[in-house]
């Protein structure tokens, strides 16, 4: 199987040097873009490849780019930002890419920068990813030395400076406009949209923010072509994706698989099924901020629209499993604690609603819950629903709560009825 993302990785996972990367076919995509295509051509290629954003929302990358003003009269400078602030609990896909093959990201960014006419680019890296930072820093130096970045990249007319910025923290920096605020030195609160960053982004200039994994797909698309890339997918969506499995499975881990791979295949063949003595009760298909699904959804293909129709989101493609010996209330409480703590404090349903939800879940988990608390919880989830809050953090936080209340209601009721957690007997 073709693996555009991880195919070149060394077995020992040490980062590929530029020479190693080149010999594995690296920088062919950039070469192809700069030598044989104009920026419009690259954009068309990406559109044709049907690449969708891997940060979680699955927005088509080519369309996102096309909102960026281009051509002669377009404002300058324009910026490209790689969102590498990977902080979603259970998600660690970008980390592998940056630690093990930093040049893949650099090449992807050069290609994107060329298509967008961005003269300055940033990698906004999660602060705790110190190993990725070191590897990227070394790779950046190599890329500059070899003319893959800086002035006249690969001898062509295109120039782009690429800077690595390590975040000072906060999950909200993964929200693209909060990320831009943080990069500007402001508080990491999300911004009003519209205007979208493509119109008024970093320092008020046109800006595109793409997820790290999204950008890492570009070298292969350019090198091998859109049709090849599309054909990698097993269902509607194109290409491959990094899928992770966490929870009490035999072999938790991270795999590159075609889009549209059935969940059961990831769960059973890659992760080896549930560990001895555990039974699957449900799972979050796309990371901590996605709705729970039940085991009967294992047959679904990991495609953006398929998972969406099933009532959850593909998200980051990181499956988090709930087994029959883990208390779902405690699990949701734990997740909610994270989201409440990471609220930026801007809008009310998130800032004040999530800590309240956490407080209720803590009470229920400790056996101090009351029946009416469940209605309050549902109310809080409604309040934090999509469109009601300033950004997507609160709806993401509400997703596991409301789906757990729907799917594992008997557990909540049992906690309240018994006055203690049934999993702690």
């Amino acid at each position, binding site marked *: 199987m073709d693996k555009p993302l991880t195919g070149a990785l060394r077995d020992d996972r040490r980062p590929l040097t530029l020479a190693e990367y080149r010999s594995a076919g690296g920088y062919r995509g950039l070469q192809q873009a700069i030598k044989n295509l104009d920026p419009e051509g690259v954009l068309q290629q990406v559109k044709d490849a049907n690449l969708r954003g891997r940060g979680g929302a699955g927005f088509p990358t080519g369309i996102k780019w096309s909102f960026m003003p281009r051509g002669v009269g377009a404002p300058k400078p324009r910026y490209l930002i790689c969102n590498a602030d990977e902080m979603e609990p259970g998600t660690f896909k970008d980390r592998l890419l940056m630690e093990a093959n930093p040049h893949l990201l650099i090449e992807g960014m050069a290609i994107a920068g060329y298509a967008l006419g961005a003269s300055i680019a940033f990698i906004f890296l999660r602060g705790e990813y110190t190993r990725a930072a070191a590897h990227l820093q070394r790779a950046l130096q190599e890329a500059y030395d070899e003319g893959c970045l800086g002035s006249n990249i690969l001898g062509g007319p295109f120039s782009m400076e690429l800077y690595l910025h390590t975040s000072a923290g906060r999950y909200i920096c993964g929200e693209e406009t909060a990320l831009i605020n943080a990069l500007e030195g402001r508080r990491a609160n999300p911004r009003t949209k519209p205007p979208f960053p493509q119109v*008024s982004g970093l320092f*008020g200039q046109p800006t595109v923010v793409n997820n790290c994994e999204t950008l890492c797909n570009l070298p292969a698309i350019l090198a091998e072509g859109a049709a090849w890339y599309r054909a990698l997918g097993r269902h509607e969506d194109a290409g491959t994706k990094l899928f992770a499995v966490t929870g009490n499975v035999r072999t938790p881990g991270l795999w590159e698989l075609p889009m549209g791979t059935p969940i059961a295949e990831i769960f059973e063949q890659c992760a080896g099924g549930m560990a001895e003595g555990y039974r699957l009760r449900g799972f979050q298909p796309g990371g901590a901020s996605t709705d729970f699904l039940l085991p009967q959804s294992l047959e679904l293909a990991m495609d953006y629209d398929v998972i969406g129709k099933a009532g959850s989101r593909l998200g980051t493609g990181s499956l988090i499993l709930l087994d029959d010996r883990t208390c779902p209330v405690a699990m949701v409480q734990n997740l909610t604690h994270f989201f409440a703590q990471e*609220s930026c404090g801007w809008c*009310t*349903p998130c*800032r004040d*609603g999530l800590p309240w939800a956490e407080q209720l879940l803590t009470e229920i988990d400790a056996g101090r819950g009351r029946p009416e608390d469940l209605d309050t919880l549902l109310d*809080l989830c409604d309040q934090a629903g999509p469109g009601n809050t300033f950004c997507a953090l609160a709806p993401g936080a509400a997703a596991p709560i409301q789906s757990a209340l729907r799917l594992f209601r008997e557990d909540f009721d049992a906690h309240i009825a018994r006055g203690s957690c049934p999993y702690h007997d």
Partner: protein
Amino acid sequence: MPRIRIDGQAYEVKEGLNLLQACLGLGLNLPYFCWHPALGSVGACRQCALLQYRDEEDRQGRLVMGCMTAVADGQILSLKADKARHFRAGVIEALMTNHPHDCPVCEEGGECHLQDMTVMSGHHHRRYRGRKRTFVNQDLGPFINHEMNRCITCYRCLRFYRDYAGGEDLHALASRNHTYFGRASDGPLESEFAGNLVEVCPTGVFTDKPLSQSYTRKWDLQHAPSICVHCSLGCNISPGERYGRLKRVQNRYHHGINGYFLCDRGRFGFGHVNHPERPQQPLVRENGRLRPVAASEGLAELARRLETTERWIGIGSPRATLESNLALRELVGADHFFTGLGSHPNALNRALLELLRLPGVNTPSLREIEACDALLLLGEDITQSAPRMALSVRQAVRGAGRDRAAALNIPPWQAQSVQIAGQNARHPLFISHVTATRLDPIAEATYRASPQEQAALAFAVAHCLCPEAPAPEGLDEQAQSLAEKIAEALLHAKRPLIVTGPSSGALPLVEAAGQVARALLNARPAEACPPALIPVFAECNSLGLTLLTQDAAEADLEQAFALSEHGPVGAIILENDLFRRAPGPLVQGFLERLTQRIVIDSIPSPTLNAADLVLPATSFAESQGTLINNEGRAQPLFPVHALHAERRNSWQWLAAVAGHRALKGFASPADALATCVTAAPELAPLSQALPSAAHPFTRLAVPRMPHRNSGRTAAGANLDVREDQQPQDHDSCLTFSMEGAPAPWLSRQSGIGARLPFSWYPGWNSNQAVHKFKDAVDGPLRGGESGMRLDLVCRDNGWHRPLPVDTEAQGLLAVVQPAIFGGEELSNLAAPVFQRAALPCLRIHPDDAPAWSVADGDRVLVRGASAATELPLRVDPRVARGIALLPPTCPPLGTGPTRVSLRSLGSDPLIATDHPEPTDG
């Protein structure tokens, strides 16, 4: 005009608004927190949610935030739908999880926007059982209390303080539901607009500290529509009184002037009204001591003394009302009436008045200043002398960002997006001054030089714009190129503005400001927007006094002094401390030569101490009269509470004189105003303020007290259980009572906006009620604002010829630096303002120190032509060379532009002071 439907009712609304603005403008109640009419929308609180339907068929609807959604033709909306109501109540419920519910002990209670919105949203039952987060509060200085536990995190304080007012020491710290609004450490908030946080904060995080020392709820305060007397801008204020004590001052909306904001001097500077040493009743000098007497005896004494001397002079005041000045002028005769100012300040005031007369040049209101796109501040530090104007100048400078956002189709109310798109774009602001000012950080260029050199720069700007304007001589290359840059910016701006004032004490500088405006008018195409020119005056009625005396042959204090040297003469000194106006020895000599010294004033002063007869005048809070602000706008003052038995308006004392000196035309405030109308042709528009058939005073009955005022009838029960009759007010449409026309009825009356004593409307107890009295949220009060612009006669005096800069003069040129705190007579009597005043000191440029053998930290003797004073010295590179920058409290050292010499008295022995170390820039 887009047509929208809300809950089945069709409306037409103005294009370009958001739904919240539209709803409030239509008089609908939609709760909100983070939105503010002057600060725009940021969508943080999610309180103003309403339901929007896709089309007629849609029964579900979708929640949208009113403040973040632009109106569009054909929108179908609902405020009342269950889903919207439920969501809004839920937002309050979430906000309340951490709010302490300490309303009974909270000073915001009774005028709390959070209380109002909670009631409006319908949230009443508490489900949250968890703990509340708590914070440690900070000492934010003498103006503001800090109680962070009440915070609902609407971010308004930050957006006002930092984004709108340019403050830097208030931060949002930490995050999530622990977001903390405060300073990095305890200490006074540095911005001179910090007091607005009291009104900007929707709940009780920032409250009025001087008010808490003698606290009264809003519903127990008696208010009046009043005018600030602490500078010449005439901001509209709503002072509140209880038990005869003025408790606080709040902003009173005026569309053209102060809008929603006051400066801290205006808000906290009222202490002179309650000052313990304030003359409470007439004082008669007997055996060298002043003896208090009853009002009737004081009046008899006045009449008796007027008979003792044949010749009388009257000394007026730029801080007294038009009526009082005029009454004195009528009493003593125009030939014997003096402004109470020296010849030089008089000349400056007349020159500033000439600026208002320039034909073709626009006199902008503060609101119009906010739309200007190239600004030149000439020789006046408005941050200190007219602070509210500095806030408007900031908005003008930020206009470049608004323009940039508009080019991206971002509506102006999208505050955050405008800021992002605008980044640090600024319209050009040029500041020419003798030292640094607090606007320097946002200036395109600054010029620090002596007033003469500054005038030369301005004349050069005029010459660059229009070659007919004579060029100055001897301008250095750097100044010349700056002049060209300024000329270029002004010429190409859509709405250029020039600001000047009297602080630098240089007549040529004022004339040069006019020259720039005149040159600009000549240089710009006829169809271009006329250039704007706005002078600042020194005091609240400087312009009114100047208008009364502009044609007088003799109106200067020096002439009054001279008059006293020729034969016996008595003087009536009106609300004026002459020791602030002329060098001490000269004033002393004058007072000693007078046969009679009658002083009418509301504050203690050395002049008052020298009086034979003191008549206690009303402060602004008890006065009825007229003040004329810097743009030539006459505005009425109304008494907040009924007159103290022993006090009178100054003009009332004079009007009570009988015999051959009896005054006609001062029987009542309306009568006095009518007399003013005829006093000078330019004052004719004042007649609009007179009661007429259309606006009879008595029929409206606007209550000065909120209708819930408690204990009114029992307030004096400790003295006499019988209820006193409420004082009657026959001279205005206001009543000293809570009884009168109800607010909803008043809100529909045209012409009442300017007479509103306070903002209140059912369901809207805070100042935010003001939108109920407007037709549009961003518009003026319904039926007009307070005050009327005078019809000043236009006059073109031709080009001024620049004088060569005097390089031969000996000594340093004394320039008094105005100061917002500690720089004004009345507010210096307010303890919190005085606490914020910097330590008085002399500042000179380092290059000037060696010539006088003085060093930083010395105590120096500063000697002028007629007097000397001692001051600590600060050597400061920001001061222009050749300048001795004196503190505002420094007594006059000479008459007119004064040169001073310095002598060191050794190092300053001061080792500790209550004053903050001087900081600026």
